[in-house]
């Protein structure tokens, strides 16, 4: 425990600056706006530094607990408020408490994945952007078919194509037979008729086949059900419902340096853990902000860091942070007590009692705050 004393408080100056760059800049801006004599200026700077140092967390202050409290208090407010929004019309994006749970539980498939696709400067015309949007939207066979018929005698599914629609989508009817990839079938197109024949002549599969045909992918990026082109801050952007970053990045004209997704796991898969961490922060901050709740970003940063330290995205809870703590006693005290105790017994785990919770369990002084320090002295005459 005595080596905790070695933690000297981390303070500026770093790189010769007396304050962090942002605050330094703010001070400069303020002084530029309202100049003051050098004597006053020095006093002013001194005062800023004092205030800055006062608001720094002290060494051994339990920031984790404060973070948890600072995040969960507004979350309880959210629970009480969420029900008021039930049944509101509009594009449904998961928000509020359900969204927070999604983020913190690190769910692989969020309920409403969305993307904001930015377009490169050279392509900033409505025509270009619309074409890109068309290439993003998932077109299924049902979107270009006007009627379907099951032909039992010839054992095939016969569809009537909506030719004008196909034309507007720039899909050649002839090419459609190649675009539709349906297993164990032969697809042919004659005029406005699309015929799908199963390779085995079996009428029992026809009914099922009808739906497979209707749902089969024709064009665009899979699972992106809606695209909305709009002008935001003077440039055209595409908002989508459904997310697939990898495919979108491959499209010509897409600005892949700024394009975003709200699917945290996808961001992590495509762009790496740092981007994943950033996505967690953004999404949490957005959800809180949307509900009109204000919390300091640093709490969210700490949380995101905790979730990402190991290079992957770990959920908070049983299968993540709480369930993977070092101390077997702490894990047992959280959830699944029996499992953790037996597992610890089988491995012969040793609990070094260095954490807070374990020490509270055995009613010892926890090494946190005032308990992190010990008096070290030498009694005269004794070795």
């Amino acid at each position, binding site marked *: 425990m005595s080596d905790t004393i070695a933690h000297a408080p981390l303070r500026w100056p770093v790189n010769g600056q007396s304050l962090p760059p942002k605050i330094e800049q703010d001070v400069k801006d303020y002084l530029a706006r309202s100049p003051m004599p050098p004597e006053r200026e020095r006093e002013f700077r001194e005062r800023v530094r004092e205030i800055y140092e006062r608001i720094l967390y002290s060494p*051994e202050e*339990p920031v984790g607990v404060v973070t948890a*409290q600072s995040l969960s208090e507004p979350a309880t407010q959210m629970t009480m408020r969420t029900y008021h929004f039930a049944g509101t019309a509009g594009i449904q994006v998961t928000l509020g408490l359900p969204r927070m749970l999604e983020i913190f539980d690190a769910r692989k498939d969020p309920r409403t994945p969305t993307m904001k696709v930015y377009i490169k400067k050279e392509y900033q015309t409505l025509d270009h952007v619309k074409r890109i949007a068309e290439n993003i939207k998932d077109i299924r066979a049902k979107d270009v078919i006007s009627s379907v018929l099951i032909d039992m005698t010839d054992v095939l599914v016969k569809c009537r194509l909506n030719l004008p629609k196909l034309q507007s989508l720039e899909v050649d009817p002839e090419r459609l037979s190649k675009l539709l990839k349906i297993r164990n079938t032969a697809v042919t197109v004659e005029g406005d008729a699309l015929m799908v024949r199963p390779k085995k002549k079996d009428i029992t599969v026809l009914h099922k086949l009808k739906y497979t045909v209707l749902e089969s992918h024709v064009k665009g990026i899979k699972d992106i059900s809606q695209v909305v082109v709009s002008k935001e801050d003077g440039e055209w952007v595409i908002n989508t419902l459904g997310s697939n970053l990898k495919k979108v990045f491959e499209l010509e004209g897409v600005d892949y340096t700024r394009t975003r997704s709200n699917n945290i796991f996808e961001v992590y898969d495509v762009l790496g853990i740092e981007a994943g961490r950033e996505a967690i922060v953004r999404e949490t901050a957005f959800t809180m902000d949307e509900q009109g709740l204000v919390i300091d970003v640093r709490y969210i940063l700490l949380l995101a860091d905790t979730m990402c330290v190991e290079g992957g995205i770990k959920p908070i809870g049983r299968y993540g942070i709480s369930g993977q703590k070092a101390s077997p006693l702490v894990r047992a005290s959280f959830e699944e007590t029996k499992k953790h105790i037996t597992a610890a*017994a089988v491995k012969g785990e*040793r609990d070094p009692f260095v954490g807070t919770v374990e020490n509270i369990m055995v*009613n010892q002084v*926890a090494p946190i705050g*005032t*308990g992190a320090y010990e008096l070290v002295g030498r009694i005269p005459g004794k070795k």
Partner: protein
Amino acid sequence: MKDKADIYFNGKRIGEAAQPDLYVANVRKKRRMGLLSIQLNAVYYPEFREVRISTDAGRVRRPLIIVENGKSRLTEAVRAKVDAGQADWSFLVAHGIVEYLDAEEEENALVALREDQIGKDHTHVEIDPISLLGLSAGLIPYPEYNRGDRINYGAKMVGQSIGVPTGNYLLRTDTKFNALAYPQVPLVETKTSKVLSEFPEGQNIVIAVGCYDGYNMEDAVILNKSSIQRGLARSFYFRTYETLKKRYWGGQEDAIQIPEPGIKGFRGEDAYKDLDADGIINPMSFVTSDSVLVGKISPLRFLTTEEFASDIENKRETSVTIKHGERGLVDTIFISETTDADQLFKIRIRDARQPELGDKFASRHGQKGVVGLLVNQEDMPFTGRGVVPDIIFNPHAIPSRMTIGQLLEIIAAKTGALNGETVDASAFDHMKDEDIRKLLKRLGFRDDGKEVLYDGRTGKAFTVRIYVGISFYMKLDHMVTDKIHARSRGPVTLLTKQPTEGRAKRGGLRIGEMEQQCLIGHGAALTLKERFDSDKAFMPVCTKCGMIATHDVAKNRTFCSICKESSIQWVETSYAFKLTLDEIKSMGVYPNVQVEEL
């Protein structure tokens, strides 16, 4: 869309109707003619095209007068019959003048509030506007001037009021009940409260709407101490304790007597000093927590062999004692016998309770508050006529809750008090507010109910005029004496050695998980440890095998029963952790405690 409507009878589909409107009308007609049970209700839901007929139990139903072709079936002729005593309620029901509707059939009904409001579409008319409200809500004056939720709260609080519980409560032995010392009929009455005039639930008191040094902030009220000393809101709390003189197998029986020393569980001579020679306490004795009411000894259980039967050491003390935290005078003693011919003793304790700081009061408009200050009469504000209010009520309680009915009640009661008569304030059916004000003016007061008040401490007039009048106030069954609780040392639970929970068990207030997190958040590690010292324990640990060792107090020897050695360290932990170690051991897991020198 279905072309025919489904018919459900008590939830079971029984058929279809091509013209469901007509079908339901027919069913109702037959019910009114007495061909179908009056407990049957039928409803048609056009949006689902479903007819539902119910005859099952558990539906809330209420009576309404039937209206046909814009005319009430309760005609002058029928009224005359009722007045002459030739027709009673069952006559009205049997002749299809009144019928009961359940919640579903009400969906198809259009009910007029009063007979003069009947239009061509109405199907029913209320017997009286007040029948819209139930028993408790019916007691609220001017309810239509209050917001709906306040009526709900008000009705709920009427149910908690201390008044006259029953007409014969002095002869009853209910486990516990409260009774008001000087109950009054409300000055502002409703039709319901007139019916219940023998069971009033509060008192008419002089109310001033104002502040007094902030002691009535946040819904608190200030009471006139002198009024209390004259008996305002004084109530009695009764509790009945009972015991049986049982007879057991083998001819043994309980004995009602003053227990002798040596009996198992003997409480000491002092505990029995109030008991009479027969072992029962004398009426009018003052008793407090753990006082003995009836001295009783019982034979030890499972020990019926004759050789021990008369041995005094094989009896145990089973006296009846007062519950912890309660007190009072012995009111009445009832001695009787059960159907099994065991003697039955019931002792009723009475505790007179004056209002005190923290007792809960409420008007009938959902305006509740606790007593914040008791003020002597000489320090209370007074009017020019010398009237001193009994209660000072904070004006901030009015605007957000919008209980205008309460303001009306205050001036209506004022006119009533001046005229010497009660005022009727039944729902939708009472004197208009302008008329109340006119009446007040005629009686020599300002018509807005405001008066100049003088501060009792300084004698100076307040710069604002203050709303003064009379209001009916209820003392609610939430008194501090029943709830006050504190603990320094006290009992602990057997299993964990942690303090017990709850007032009845002299329990502590738990530092829960969230409170613990707060202490951690402040970095107060030493405070945290001190808080959790309630089950502090020392356990001997064998330094060799890491198991909890044995400490033989008699021989003053500590040793490990596994290693047979005495290399023992005493370790301070919470008892709960020692228990956890024991439980882990019971799982077959070996917790090896390794002790280091600090």
